[in-house]
């Protein structure tokens, strides 16, 4: 079978790959590009473990074909930290023990970042609704919600400090 050549951008880097028409974006990320952060939980868009950003939109990468990535911009959990410096969400997940087995964690981090990028002060209810597409069988969700809320506070403080520096 002839492969499909795709040029795309993943976490800011230009990437080329060849995939089969049936392969999903999740297959491509994991099997061709070595980005194994996104996980396959269900393969049917129910669990959110494969969440990535696709042209600025939160999606389940198991429900996107690899071929659809041509010319698009993809962001995965691997692009979240700034070098060795973890994103506030990652730090708070560790600190609040918002994970046990960790399979769902990359999806939760990507979905939580999508929420905080559009709403820097979400209520508990808003956090729970925004993360309704991500399933976790270990934590009971409470620690995840608390970690996201704490990270939102961190980000607000960072923004305030940046604004002060700019003004001063």
């Amino acid at each position, binding site marked *: 079978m002839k492969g*499909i050549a795709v040029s795309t951008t993943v976490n800011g880097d230009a990437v080329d790959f060849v995939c*089969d*028409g*049936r392969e*999903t974006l999740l297959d491509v990320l994991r099997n061709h590009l070595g980005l194994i952060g996104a996980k396959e939980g269900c*393969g*049917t*868009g129910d669990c*959110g473990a494969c*969440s990535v950003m*696709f042209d600025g*939109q*939160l*999606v*389940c990468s*198991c*429900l*996107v*074909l690899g*071929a*659809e990535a*041509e010319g698009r911009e993809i962001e995965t959990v691997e692009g979240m930290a700034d070098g060795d410096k973890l994103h506030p969400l990652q730090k708070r997940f560790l600190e609040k023990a918002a994970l046990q087995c960790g399979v769902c964690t990359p999806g939760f981090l990507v*979905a939580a970042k*999508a*929420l905080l990028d559009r709403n820097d002060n979400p209520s508990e209810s808003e956090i729970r*609704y*925004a993360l*309704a*597409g*991500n399933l976790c069988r270990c934590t009971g969700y409470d620690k995840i919600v608390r970690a996201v809320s704490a990270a939102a506070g961190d980000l607000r403080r960072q923004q305030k400090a940046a604004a002060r520096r700019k003004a001063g």
Partner: protein
Amino acid sequence: MRYESPTNTREAVALMAGAKGDAYLLAGGTDLLVRMRGEFIDPDLVVDIKRIPGILEIRNTASGFSIGAGVPCGALGRDKALVRHWPGVVESAQLIGSDQIQGRCTIAGNLCNASPAADSVPALVAARAKAVVVGPGGRRRVAVEDIVTGPGTTSLGKGDIVMAIVLPKRPPKSGDAYLRFIPRTEMDIAVCSAGVSLTLGPRNVVKQARVALGAVAPTVVLVPKAARAIVGTRLEDDALMKLAAACEAACSPIDDKRGTVEFRTEVAGVLARRAAAIAYDRARGKR
């Protein structure tokens, strides 16, 4: 499997019309990829329509709104004019799935997937929406209720593509609403549902109405008798009870673990009453 992403309508129609084996259209993919993964289908060709110019746009024109077949449901809620004119249609589309699904799923796909429980379809039927279909025979507009013929089947022919869903221009003092029953608060499929759209005349008397029910028959059903029960009224209690009775009479649901025949029938009437009340308030500018 061959994957094609044509950049114009003619090419897309030619690919679908000329396909030898099993060919499927890809819009948001939230049904198609699940069916592929579950091996319910084995496509020889998938035609991704999202690179066709205009298909990702919502247009607000003199004759109403045109929602491109590739527009994700989440984008409907971000269009302020659309939300103002058709809040019921928008809320029906936004009940589908998680944020992840909302970023991809489309109302055109929801229609063509032809599930009796499709959330956006009762609201679209109530809204008198039409599908813009382009095929080998040219372009035509088909009433949304004439697209689905049964669970998983449509009246679309080989090579036909729904390019957009159009909502008519809204007269003043109009409102619509959609309600569904699910046994939880989020992320589920309708056990039964109701969409109502209405327009008021002088003294807030209902002048026109459309009532449609979901998940209580092989297809979404339009219930003209329920609409007649409230036309000429101000939704007094007896009018609402007649509307509910007409809805119950129109139900022929399945019996399964998610809802019995009795439950679905009764709740469909209740939801229609409540949706009518919300639509009425919206038409008066109250919600």
